[in-house]
């Protein structure tokens, strides 16, 4: 019997761009033959769009790739261009970038935890139904998100596509009193964040253990956010400049996206909260570390469903870090350091909420972008998600297609893939023979 079913879960009225995500399963008897996930359009348009632009423009342009994580795109772009120009932004300007990035983590993770992921564990179709039934809980998540947005508005000028970020630093830096005002809001948010960890830790998690090599940044002494070098659970260690030699991207027939694997390995790998936590849990600040321990996370976490707990711990981490940075803040003497263009290539990596985000820029002597490369976390994770789904589906073949679609959606939500902003998910096709 060939059984084909397609679901188009798009809004038909006033809607955003639709229909760019699909999952295809081919099942023969009791064996899953193929899992194909087509969820991501890599920002090739932006790579082409950046060519011929001034080296000062990529932070503003790449911020437009994603409304959820613009700071990640801005930061990796700036790091790459500054590296090409032989400049390393340090001291209070680097601290401000970390603080800005903390805001993005708080806002992004809170949205995912409360409106996307938690409803799956509580038996709600979605965050709206959760809000109707448990308003106080959702209001807590929205307070957290507001705290993250407040950081981005104070330092970045606005929460989406921050405008105050530039090569070399910022256009203007906040006053001490301006940041102190944020501290009160963040102190209250810390309580909300700790309560969030306790809340999500109480959920029942499906069994799933993934054995991928994990890749994340490392900033010895602190939890990696805005910069660092790369490390993996199999002992790899390399800098941003080595990224394209270590991460091999290859075409696959079913997708416009490139699939990634690590050099010298035929296996997939995973980046994102699970990898970040498993490689860096010892560097969590005290409150986050205690919350993780109380939640039973251990030193590492390989169950994608428990990523909601890791995200909640990372929200605590980001708030603690933000409070520390605000307390230590002294306005820098200049808002940015001079960055003089030179003919060179630079590489930059940072930890977007969804994982390692790499960019490379080749500049000519006049500072014109000759070529650009952007490798976001979702395209790196795509092969790993497919492999995990195969394992996940194999033991659920007795489900109806409808049940299977729902459970696959929940599994995919665990990774919070970037599905090219403003797309709707999920078209599912199952062929059973």
């Amino acid at each position: 019997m060939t059984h084909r079913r397609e679901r188009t879960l798009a809004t038909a009225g006033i809607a955003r761009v639709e229909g760019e995500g699909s999952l295809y399963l081919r099942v023969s008897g009791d064996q899953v033959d193929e899992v194909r996930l087509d969820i991501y359009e890599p920002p090739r348009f932006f790579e082409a769009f950046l060519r011929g632009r001034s080296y000062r423009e990529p932070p503003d342009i790449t911020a437009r790739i994603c409304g959820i994580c613009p700071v990640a795109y801005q930061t990796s772009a700036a790091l790459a261009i500054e590296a090409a120009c032989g400049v390393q932004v340090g001291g209070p300007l680097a601290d401000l970038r970390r603080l800005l990035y903390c805001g993005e983590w708080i806002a992004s993770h809170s949205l995912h935890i409360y409106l996307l992921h938690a409803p799956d564990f509580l038996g709600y179709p979605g965050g709206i139904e959760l809000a109707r039934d448990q308003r106080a809980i959702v209001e807590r998540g929205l307070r957290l998100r507001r705290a993250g947005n407040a950081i981005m508005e104070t330092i970045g000028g606005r929460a989406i596509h921050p405008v105050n970020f530039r090569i070399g630093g910022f256009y203007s830096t906040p006053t001490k009193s301006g940041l102190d005002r944020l501290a009160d809001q963040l102190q209250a948010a810390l309580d909300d964040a700790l309560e969030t960890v306790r809340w999500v830790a109480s959920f029942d998690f499906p069994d799933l253990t993934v054995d991928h090599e994990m890749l994340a940044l490392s900033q010895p002494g602190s939890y990696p956010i805005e910069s660092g070098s790369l490390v993996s659970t199999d002992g790899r260690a390399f800098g941003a400049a080595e990224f394209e030699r270590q991460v091999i991207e290859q075409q696959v027939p079913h997708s416009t996206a490139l699939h990634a694997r690590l050099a010298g390995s035929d296996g997939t790998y995973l980046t994102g909260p699970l990898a970040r936590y498993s490689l860096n849990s010892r560097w969590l600040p005290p409150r986050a570390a205690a919350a993780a321990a109380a939640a039973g996370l251990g030193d590492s976490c390989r169950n994608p469903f428990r990523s909601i707990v890791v995200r909640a711990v990372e929200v605590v981490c980001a708030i603690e870090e933000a409070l520390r940075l605000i307390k230590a803040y002294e306005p820098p003497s200049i808002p940015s350091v001079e960055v003089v263009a030179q003919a060179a290539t630079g590489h930059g990596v940072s930890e977007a909420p969804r994982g390692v985000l790499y960019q490379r820029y080749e500049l000519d002597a006049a500072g014109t972008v000759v070529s650009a490369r952007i490798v976001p976390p979702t395209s790196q994770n795509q092969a790993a998600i497919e492999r995990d789904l195969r394992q996940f589906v194999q033991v659920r073949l007795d489900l109806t297609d409808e049940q299977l679609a729902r459970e696959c959606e929940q599994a995919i939500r665990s990774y919070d893939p970037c599905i090219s902003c403003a797309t709707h998910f999920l078209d599912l096709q199952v062929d059973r023979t």
Partner: protein
Amino acid sequence: MTGVGGERVIVIGVGTEFRCDDGAGPAVIERLRGTVPANVELLCSDGEPTRLMETWTDAAVAIVVDAVSGGDAAPGTLHRVVVPGHAAGHGSAPTPGQLAPTVTPASSHGLGLGAAIELSRALSRLPGQLILHGVQGEAFGYGQAFSPAVEAAIDDLTARVRADVLSALAS
């Protein structure tokens, strides 16, 4: 910023300028600048629901302009839907079904305007009146050019939105 009665009037253009027709909302906002009273808030948004909700909470009138995909209407067709806001009281008529999300998307990138409306309704955060203006799009790939149908409709869409703004200020 407030209208005549001291109440906020806000226009929000939803979309991204790098996805062809999806940039219609922000384009209307740019065309409105300087042509409506300065006390009218003009904003662009990526449509993320919690931010939309925070933006229109406490507004007397919120007007949202977005591109439309799906359905049977011809490209360039203009839509106008009035969503009963908090002024209509809780338990008011439901949002037209086509505006509500049918499922939870698989990613936080997939939440949209329908989710913003329903979340606001659940949390009593709808504006006094919410007016949705849409233009039926056909090109949503990467790029900055509108399809000919949307290009031809933008000025008319802008005029309709401006008329609603002026009406809101006069009421």
